[in-house]
């Protein structure tokens, strides 16, 4: 498997490009995670690693092993699919916990329980008791 010397230089350049791209995106995501200040901003940075960060490394692996074994190696694509499909689970868990805490503390930066737009009749009607609406736990959602 580790016959890297047999690799044609053209393929090696392509593989190296994708590995560096994927690693670079993941690094930038981690750096953003460190540099950004609010929870809601920070949640966006690691998405770089779970989208093209993963995809580029998966592509590099598929190209490398397809070239080395002279057959199509595609099972890495499963890693990409499963990372993509499972990311929303953790993100929603963390995000909704933070949102719930901020709403319970009545933080003005997050929207209250009732979405602000006038398209919703109910939010017009409980204008009298906004505090009660904020304090209610949110039981809806996916």
């Amino acid at each position, binding site marked *: 498997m580790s016959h890297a010397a047999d690799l044609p230089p053209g393929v090696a350049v392509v593989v190296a490009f994708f590995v560096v791209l994927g690693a670079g995106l993941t690094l930038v995501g981690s750096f953003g995670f460190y540099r950004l200040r609010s929870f809601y901003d920070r949640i*966006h940075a690691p998405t770089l690693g779970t989208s093209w960060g993963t995809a580029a490394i998966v592509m590099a692996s598929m190209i490398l092993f397809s070239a080395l074994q002279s057959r199509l190696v595609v099972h890495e694509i499963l890693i990409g699919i499963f990372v993509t499909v499972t990311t929303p689970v953790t993100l929603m868990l963390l995000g*909704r916990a933070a949102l719930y805490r901020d709403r319970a503390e009545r933080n003005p930066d997050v929207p209250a329980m009732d979405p602000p737009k006038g398209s919703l009749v109910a939010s017009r009607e409980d204008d009298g008791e906004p505090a009660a609406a904020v304090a209610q736990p949110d039981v809806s959602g996916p």
Partner: protein
Amino acid sequence: MSRIFPYPLMMASLVVVWLVLTSFSPGQLVVGVAVALLAGQGLAALHPVKPRLRRWDLIPKLVAIVLYDIVRSNIAVVSIILGGPRRVRRSGFVSIPLELRDPTGLAVLSVIVTSTPGTAWFDYNAARGVLLIHVFDLVDEEGWRELIKSRYEHLLMEIFE
């Protein structure tokens, strides 16, 4: 027939996954089919909602749009993170009233919103059908509403409803 194959699509993809992971051979095909049959029975015992796919032909279009958007927003988020405080960036929540009600369609939408850097799915009010997302670089709230609805929601509704 439907008792043995309660979820034909899921079971077929399990067989494919098994074969891809174990490098194709007749023996592995038998094992893969056995695993798929067992998993199908297990899943049937849970009685999940069976997704209905109305428009197969639109799925490649959706995948292409999403892949393109992910590339674009990767570039946008990288340039914001590395760009430093050169310009004032405002992030914030956007609530979007959705017409899409199909659970599978909503699940796909959540994967799309989450895997696109710069947008994160936070809350969905099932009673009102209002989605709450957080946008990393919020310039135009109405624009985001329009984008989610016209770019993804209509397509998902055509596929699933």
